[in-house]
């Protein structure tokens, strides 16, 4: 059998290819990006013509994957946790329509917010939508579970949510591969009304879904991933996903001291939880994320079982787990470790040398000096780093696209000027609809689209906006006179300052395209070009 060293993300991608996936859909977002990148660089995917283009956002990705499933083929869609908020409408409803070809929705959560605005726990979405959730403990399980997830999805005609967290997504281990399975051929759903969620149909299907969800815990594929082991002690432990590894790290050699329920698939069979709880005086719950199981175990009244976890302070209320946190929760001694010398300074992320966003902010900063602070709205991307010194320019970062719409609302409240700074990829992700609102009201907002022609923060993926921004803005109705293009370079500083100032002084909507390629992708493209030339010489 063949073994590969794979990131958790890559194990998921490889498994999907081996399990007969016909199409992968995604928008880049840490820590999920490498799933699509693996599929894109896979010769297997190229040979078998597996769909592998980036989508404009997570919602369009989710819907396209559902469309592929409608046509009978296996599809997977991947996103970071907050991306599932964007895709939520389609996701929740896909549980009511059900699927035709197997459909897996991968949500990569980011507890401790290494690269995110919140640490929401996607398992709640699974419960909310009434679909099965898989949460692998390690890279091998991530690989193996994808096969089960496709099977389960096709068995019950339900989408399956596949939840991972940063540490699994971005940690490498060796993975044993399986034989590749054939892909599905195209086929229409047997019931032509299955996907038509008119109220009369939706009511019927939703009722069927609630009945099905009651029976899911006893499905052998789901219950098979949840393991109960007996132990001598009276403290039981429930772990979810990778929390099990942190537990084993601390108790290896003493596993029999604790009854342990290791959960990796949901919904959980109540009887297995009862068997653990009935044999214990108290139960410690270790979850990488929100206290989902812990809350259910406590119930509204919280008085039957002694439960320890995030809600009583045994485990910190927020942030990811690690071996030391788990050791403390178990009441074990931990090594103090040396202290970090006081001379060590913070090294926050910053703009790369030569970054176009930096030159754009330099120009904007000079203009905004005349108006005072608190007037620049932004959102998610490398350009959010404009919030940090020396620029200190950005006053908001909430979600993809919120720069434009928050600026609109602020002008509605009388704030002048209001500037929105948004990246090119973020603009086509979620900025266009907001811009249409601004066009219709002619809001006195200046939208700066800082166009570096890539999706920069996640490592330089294709941007759907490339070569399209002028036509999109004009098509939405932005006035040609107030659609300006600048090249953010130090030598153009004076000119850029005066163009931005002119457009801010215009009491109506204006858009400034600040366009210069990302320094990272530019140097990478140059290298590829050079090595391509060298190759032709040989």
């Amino acid at each position, binding site marked *: 059998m063949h*073994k590969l*060293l794979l990131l958790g993300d890559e194990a998921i991608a490889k498994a999907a290819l081996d399990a007969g996936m016909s199409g992968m859909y995604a928008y880049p977002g*840490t*820590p999920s*990006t*490498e799933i699509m990148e693996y599929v894109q660089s896979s010769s297997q995917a190229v040979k078998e013509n597996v769909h592998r283009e980036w989508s404009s956002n997570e919602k369009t990705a989710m819907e396209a994957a559902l469309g592929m499933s409608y046509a009978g083929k296996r599809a997977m869609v991947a996103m970071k946790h907050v991306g599932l908020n964007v895709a939520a409408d389609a996701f929740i409803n896909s549980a009511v329509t059900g699927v035709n070809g197997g459909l897996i929705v991968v949500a990569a959560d980011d507890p401790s917010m*290494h*690269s995110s605005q919140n640490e929401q726990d996607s398992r709640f979405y699974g419960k909310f939508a009434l679909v099965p959730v898989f949460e692998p403990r390690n890279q091998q399980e991530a690989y193996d579970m994808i096969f089960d997830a496709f099977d389960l999805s096709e068995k019950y005609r339900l989408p399956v949510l596949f939840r991972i967290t940063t*540490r*699994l997504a*971005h*940690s*490498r*281990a*060796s993975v044993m591969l399986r034989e590749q399975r054939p892909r599905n051929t195209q086929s229409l759903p047997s019931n032509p009304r299955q996907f038509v969620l008119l109220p009369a149909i939706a009511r019927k299907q939703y009722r069927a879904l609630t009945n099905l969800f009651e029976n899911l815990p006893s499905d052998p594929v789901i219950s098979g991933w949840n393991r109960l082991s007996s132990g001598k002690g009276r403290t039981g432990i429930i772990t979810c996903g*990778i929390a*099990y*590894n*942190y537990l*084993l*790290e601390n108790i*290896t050699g003493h596993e029999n001291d604790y009854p342990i329920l290791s959960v990796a698939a949901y919904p959980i069979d109540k009887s297995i939880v009862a068997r653990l709880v009935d044999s214990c005086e108290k139960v410690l719950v270790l979850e990488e994320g929100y206290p989902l199981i812990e809350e259910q175990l406590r119930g509204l009244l919280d008085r039957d079982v002694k439960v320890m976890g995030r809600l009583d302070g045994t485990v910190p209320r927020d942030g990811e787990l*690690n*071996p*030391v946190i788990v*050791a403390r929760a178990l009441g074990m001694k*931990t*090594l*103090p*470790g*040396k*202290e*970090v*010398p006081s*001379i*060590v*300074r*913070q*090294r*926050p*992320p*910053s*703009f*790369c040398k030569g970054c176009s966003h930096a030159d754009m902010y330099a120009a904007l900063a000079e203009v905004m000096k005349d108006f005072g602070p608190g007037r620049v709205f932004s959102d998610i991307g*490398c350009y959010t*780093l404009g919030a940090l*010194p020396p620029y200190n320019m950005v006053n908001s970062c909430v979600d993809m696209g919120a720069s434009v719409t928050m600026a609109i609302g602020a002008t509605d409240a009388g704030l002048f000027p209001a500037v929105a700074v948004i990246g090119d990829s973020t603009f086509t992700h979620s900025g266009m609809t907001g811009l249409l609102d601004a066009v219709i009201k002619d809001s006195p907002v200046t939208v700066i689209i800082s166009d570096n022609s890539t999706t920069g*923060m*996640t*490592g330089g993926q294709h941007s759907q906006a490339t070569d399209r921004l002028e036509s999109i803005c004009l098509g939405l109705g932005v006035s040609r006179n107030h659609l300006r293009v600048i090249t953010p370079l130090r030598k153009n500083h004076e000119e850029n300052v005066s163009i931005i100032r002119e457009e801010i002084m215009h009491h109506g909507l204006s858009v400034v395209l600040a366009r210069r390629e990302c320094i990272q992708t530019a140097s990478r493209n140059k290298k590829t070009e050079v*090595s391509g030339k*060298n190759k032709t010489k040989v």
Partner: protein
Amino acid sequence: MKCDIILAGVGGQGILSIAATIGLAAVEKNLFLKQSEVHGMSQRGGDVQSHLRLSDTEIHSDLIPDGKADLIISVEPMEALRYLPWLSPDGWIVTSSVPYVNIPDYPGIEDILSELKKAGHTIVLDADAIAKDVGSSRSGNMVILGAASSFISLPFESLENGVRQLFMRKGEEVVDLNLKALRAGRGAAGSHKNV
């Protein structure tokens, strides 16, 4: 056998190439390996770290517990200090002495070197100069890996094979430059062990 390593540096300095080389070598020797790395925001000039664990038995946690790392390999001297809480009392630090200054309040290099000396078993090398000497000025990261190689529970030949595999796609010349840097680092560490 277990060998827990923290790799440290600044985004873009090539610690993931060090990790990948060790990973390939570990696969060749059929060892268990887990290697957790940082992607995303911090890669933009922020501090980055990777937890790399090797063992001949199954490894559970992707993260190394505090006070348990056998080795800190750092391509930047201040970054080596940032991970001292993970270092075991008898662990080693192998670091480049070349500061990467992209913050206004970067401390004095003398203070950093004196903290490194206090930290215990330390090898501090001017990785850039050594790399330049052997004509591979961009392979400072491989110099540091070479310097740390005697503390990693893997045969040196396996690390060399790892370098070959990793850089194969970039051509014979790149492979040779990186191998030269790796060997130069190993040689230089021999004479610095008492620092």
